């Protein structure tokens, strides 16, 4: 294993810092003189980013992404840990499938791939999956979600929340009332009325959040709300937290920037579940992330093959890729806009997600802990070019945009897994 000395960088608070890495761990002093020195003048060093919502598509949909390409995309975006959502083929609702995904991630050795297990068998919303077995497997699953689908039956949701208390688990809800969103295409509002696309009302998301927050309160269990998108949702979470409910929430980078007006082009690259909402919602989400009502940023990286987006809107798949643009978009919308400091952004993108998921090796730069970190040039700018993305799929809504913050290097367990100049 190589040893490293990283010199001349600044940390998240802007203070100069020197880092020493030996045997994959951050150390006080190096015991060897055979180390590689990195001159990080002008760069900032940050703990590796942690994503709690990634769609890796393997097993079953390898035409859009694999654990390998997903990991390559992740480290290019500065992520040292991602969490693979279970809506694969077969669904990750057994110990066998989650272990397969976990081992694949390990074998590629680029970043940690922590599988998320399904809440119900086949994500059908009726019968609880073997949550305990998944937790006890090699993958040590702690977060469960039927993401892609809502756990709509209140009784099933209640039981799931109660059951995971056994092992300090979390149920991550994809809040979408199925009856109110049948065949819905985009946010319900002025734009959808004009464009003739079936609307997805905010209440379909908020009603489920409100219900689940009350359930979590009632059974005293940990609830996580995936991809929050509305001002109303932020309000519900805020008042729930005030009452002491154990709820956490995430927001995606695209929901911090884009609105439903993008649909006017009828370009399906903007079609996503949950949909892009209004400017008012975007502002509320930013404020919520700034004041901590929303705990973390999560990408909901959703790769789709070209054919799934190269058609008319109503026939197109929902989803956008986001691992490689996440940090830049968040830096643009939250730090450059003055809503928060870089240190707070790192809390939202690294420390807090690691804490929620109990990923002990991630979320902080601390002597004695594994070296999971990234070097970023905050002053530099880059233009998103979809053909250059490391992900197998190219469905990014930011193609052609100029963004701040260029990620130079990413380290995982002390190994250099991404080097912008080298790769």
């Amino acid at each position, binding site marked *: 294993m190589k040893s490293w000395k990283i010199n001349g960088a600044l940390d998240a608070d802007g203070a100069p810092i020197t880092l020493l890495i030996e045997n994959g761990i951050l150390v006080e002093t190096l015991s060897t003189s055979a180390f590689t020195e990195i001159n990080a003048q002008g760069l900032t060093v940050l703990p590796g980013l942690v994503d709690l919502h990634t769609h890796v598509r393997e097993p079953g949909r390898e035409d859009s992404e694999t654990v390998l390409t997903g990991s390559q995309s992740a480290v290019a975006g500065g992520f040292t840990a991602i969490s693979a959502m279970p809506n694969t083929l077969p669904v990750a609702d057994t110990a066998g499938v989650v272990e397969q995904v976990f081992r694949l991630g390990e074998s590629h050795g680029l970043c940690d791939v922590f599988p998320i297990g399904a809440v119900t068998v086949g994500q059908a919303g009726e019968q609880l999956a073997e949550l305990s077995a998944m937790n006890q497997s090699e993958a040590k699953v702690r977060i469960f979600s039927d993401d892609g689908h809502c756990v709509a039956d209140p009784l099933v949701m209640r039981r799931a929340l109660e059951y995971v208390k056994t092992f300090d688990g979390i149920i991550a809800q994809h809040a979408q009332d199925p009856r109110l969103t049948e065949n819905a295409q985009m946010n*319900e*509002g*002025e*734009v*959808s*009325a*004009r*464009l*003739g*696309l*079936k*609307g997805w*009302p905010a209440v379909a998301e908020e009603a489920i959040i409100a219900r689940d927050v009350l359930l979590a309160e009632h059974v005293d269990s940990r609830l996580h709300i995936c991809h929050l998108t509305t001002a109303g949702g932020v309000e519900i979470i805020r008042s729930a937290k005030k009452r002491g409910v154990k709820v956490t929430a995430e927001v995606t980078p695209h929901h911090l920037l884009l609105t439903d007006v993008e649909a006017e*082009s*009828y*370009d399906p690259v903007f079609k996503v579940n949950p949909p892009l909402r209004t400017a008012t919602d975007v502002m509320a989400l930013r404020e919520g992330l700034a004041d901590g009502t929303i705990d973390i940023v999560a990408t909901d990286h959703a790769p789709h093959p070209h*054919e*799934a987006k*190269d*058609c*008319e*809107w*109503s*026939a*197109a798949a929902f989803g956008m890729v986001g691992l490689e643009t996440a940090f830049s978009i968040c830096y643009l919308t939250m730090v450059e806009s003055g809503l928060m400091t870089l240190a707070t952004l790192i809390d939202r993108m690294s420390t807090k997600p690691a804490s929620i998921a109990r990923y002990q090796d991630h979320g902080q730069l601390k002597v004695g802990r594994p070296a999971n970190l990234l070097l970023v040039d905050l002053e530099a700018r880059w233009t998103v070019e979809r053909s250059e993305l490391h992900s197998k799929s190219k469905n990014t809504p930011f193609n052609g945009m100029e963004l701040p913050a260029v990620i130079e290097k990413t380290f995982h367990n002390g190994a250099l897994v991404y080097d912008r100049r080298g790769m």
Partner: protein
Amino acid sequence: MAKLSDASVKKFPTLRGRTVVNLFFEDSTRTRISFEAAAKRLSADVINFSAKGSSLSKGESLKDTALTLQAMGADAVIIRHGSSGAPHQLARQRWMSGAVINAGDGTHEHPTQALLDAFTIRRHLKENNGDLNGVRVAIVGDVLHSRVARSNVLLLKKLGAEVVLVAPPTLLPVGVESWKVKVSYSIDDVISDVDVVMMLRVQRERMDDLFFPTEREYSRNFGLNFERIQSMKEKAIVMHPGPMNRGLEISADGADSARSVIVEQVANGVSVRMAVLYLLLGGATSRDLASQIGALS
């Protein structure tokens, strides 16, 4: 173009050599025939492509079909599709380089219908001259799912008419306030004040999705029946884009009354579509200009 249709000449050589393709992904004999008649009266060649029932799945159809049409040298494609935004996709993606005419996309727009409606109104109420300032139009029925309503609201307002939408709340889109039109839940409140009553078709299937409880209740509250027709202004007219559900949104008396201009709408449809085709294909198209430039260099 309508004057040309009235005159004894039925055919003009203007679009000779141009190929127009009717690309209809949804059934519509009426609109398709109207476009076909318009194209043929201008001596264009017409190819009919009905994709309904084709084995290609959704999504694939549009792009692959477009590439085929490009290979066939279509100068214009008239497209009717069940997905809102499909014509935009076709025009934007450059799978083909011809003109794209929207003959109705999902619940979004049906521009030539609005044009022929406005033309019909102008003929009757404005002596075929100028704009529609001061004309009051009531659009009655399933506004939520109606592309005819959307296109008409846009065009009528542009021409200066006053529009009131009449429908049960379930059939009005959230966000309709931004359309800057009046809204009423009662046809009786507006019927004696308007110059045009435009009835929209209401699909019986909407009852299954709980948009209204029964056909009887819908018809009783929103149908154009004999009494309501009697209470209309003297010169007011009744319009309908067709096809009609006689007995549901419009009674037989309504459809056949002297106020009804429904049949004339159809004739005007051909003239309007001839005008659209002439404007898009009669002069130099971008292809013509490109080859002219090519020939010069």
